Structures are given as structure tokens and as C-alpha cells.
């Protein structure tokens, strides 16, 4: 069954790169949705059946930590795997994301293989 994926990052460049990486995986992809911040991401989640979220942490309006908090607090979304992809390297943010139930964490810069490895077993 095709999987709808939501990419959340305020950088259009990173969203484009992640789309390309996803297309190289063996994941049966449905629609790839994009959002520029956490608020837009919640709108996409409400309107679609998303099966995987790749999210930045540092974003304007609503950051990735708040987005993850809201996803985990919603009964319809709480089982969606959320992988954080960010330049944020501080241990505090990593632990916060893991405590909130992030399925994984990839630090920028990344290789396509690192992203693919992280997604293996999640979907």
C-alpha cells in the first residue's frame, strides 16, 4: 500500500532533496506532501492520511518539537513515525525529541544512505 509522506522544513531546498532521497528508497510512495513549518504540517495532517513524517526542528511559527508534541497528543496521529532531520545538534534537543517519541534522528548534513537507513524498519 502506497504511503503518503509529509516533509516539514522551512527550507525548500531541503524539502526538494528529501523528496529525491525518498524516491530512491524502496518505500512504496503515495503523495509526498510538504510544509514549511509546524502549523502548515498540522493542516496537511488533518487533510491527508500521512504514514510518515520527516521534520526539521528549528522552524518559524511552530518548531519541530511542538509539532511532535501535537502529533503524539492526537489519537489519530500518535502512531505515525516521525523522524527529525535537523542541524540542531544539542543533546538537550535530541533527548527532548526522543522523550516525545521521535522514531529517529538524522543530523544535517546527511547522505542519502543515512536517511534510507533510518527509514528501514519504520515503514
Amino acid at each position, binding site marked *: 500500500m502506497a504511503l503518503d509522506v509529509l516533509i516539514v522544513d522551512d527550507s525548500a*531546498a531541503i524539502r*526538494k532533496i528529501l523528496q529525491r532521497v525518498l524516491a530512491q528508497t524502496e518505500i512504496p510512495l503515495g503523495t509526498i506532501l510538504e510544509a514549511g513549518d509546524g502549523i502548515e504540517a498540522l493542516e496537511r495532517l488533518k487533510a491527508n492520511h500521512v504514514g510518515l513524517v520527516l521534520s526539521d526542528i528549528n522552524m518559524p511559527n511552530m518548531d519541530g518539537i511542538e509539532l511532535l508534541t501535537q502529533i503524539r497528543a492526537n489519537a489519530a496521529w500518535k502512531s505515525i513515525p516521525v523522524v527529525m532531520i535537523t*542541524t*540542531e545538534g544539542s543533546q538537550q534537543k535530541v533527548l527532548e525529541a526522543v522523550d516525545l517519541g521521535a522514531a529517529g534522528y538524522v543530523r*544535517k*548534513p546527511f547522505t542519502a544512505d543515512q536517511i534510507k537507513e533510518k527509514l528501514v524498519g519504520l515503514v
Partner: protein
Amino acid sequence: MTTEEMQELVETGIRSSVENVCGMMLGCTVEAGETRIIGHPLQESDGVVALIGMAGPWIGTGALTCRPEVARQLAGAFLMSEYEEVNDEVLDAIAELANMVIGNLKTMIEDKVGAMGLSTPTTIFGASFTTKIGGSNTWTLIPFQVCGGELLVQVCILPNEQGRTHARLDIVGHMVTKN
């Protein structure tokens, strides 16, 4: 940490970060030039500049600067596309490169001085404009040859004695900006 120790850390951090980011995300070789310590705060620019603020126990700004044709080459390598002009996608790519380079440097600084915050990048594209970081007169500048063009990486950082949450930045001249 003394200002001299921070300067050494910044120099090592910039070199390591640019090699890491450009090697992994652009897939091209990186050749670092000699570090220069610039004693005047005014930076005259002509092309693309991406600026990011850092704040915490130390406060400062990181900047990536390059000519328009280099920006197009870097964006092309980053996004596997070709660009004939400096458009929104090119500016966004340079902003993200700055975010990764300065973000990685920030992580190295955090290991020594404690938690630091990073602003979202501001990208400037134009001709004959001048940037000035308030309150500082020392930049660490390293030129890199990346994807056949020159990329300048500059950082100015000082102890945050007044507990400010962002660095002051003045930009004068003709420009197009994108946040």
C-alpha cells in the same frame, strides 16, 4: 574561555564544518585558504550573502558570501539542477548551506561554552552593499574553493556580557533580501 581560545575554536570549526557540509551535500572537493582576522567591522559585498545569528553565553554572526555565478554553481550541486540566474531556489540553497555550516559550528561551540541558539538565515542578493555587525571589530574569515568558485565564510563572536538574545546587524546599500 578566552577570546583567543574561541578564535581558535571558530577557525577549526569553520574548516571542519565546511568540509563536512560541502563534501556530503555538494559532493565536491573543498580547498581551504589562509585564515584572515579582519580588524574592521565593515564588510563590502557584491553578490550573495547568507547571515545567521548565534546567541547564548557568546553572541555573534556567521556569514557565507559568494559571487552570483558561484551561488548558482553551489545551488546546482546542492539541488542537482542548473540555474541561469540567482532566483528564489538559489537563495534558499545558499541559506540552507549557511544554516548547516554555522549550525555545525554552533554545535562545536556549545560543547565548550553551553547551549547556544541559532537564528533562521537571512539571505541578501545585490550589488555594492555593506554589512556591519554592531559591537564587534573582529571577524575570522576563511576563503574556500568549492565547486570551482570562491566561498567566503566569516564569523564574528564575542562573550555575551549583556545577556543579549541576538546580535545587531546593519546593512547599507542596494539589495534584495529573502528571509
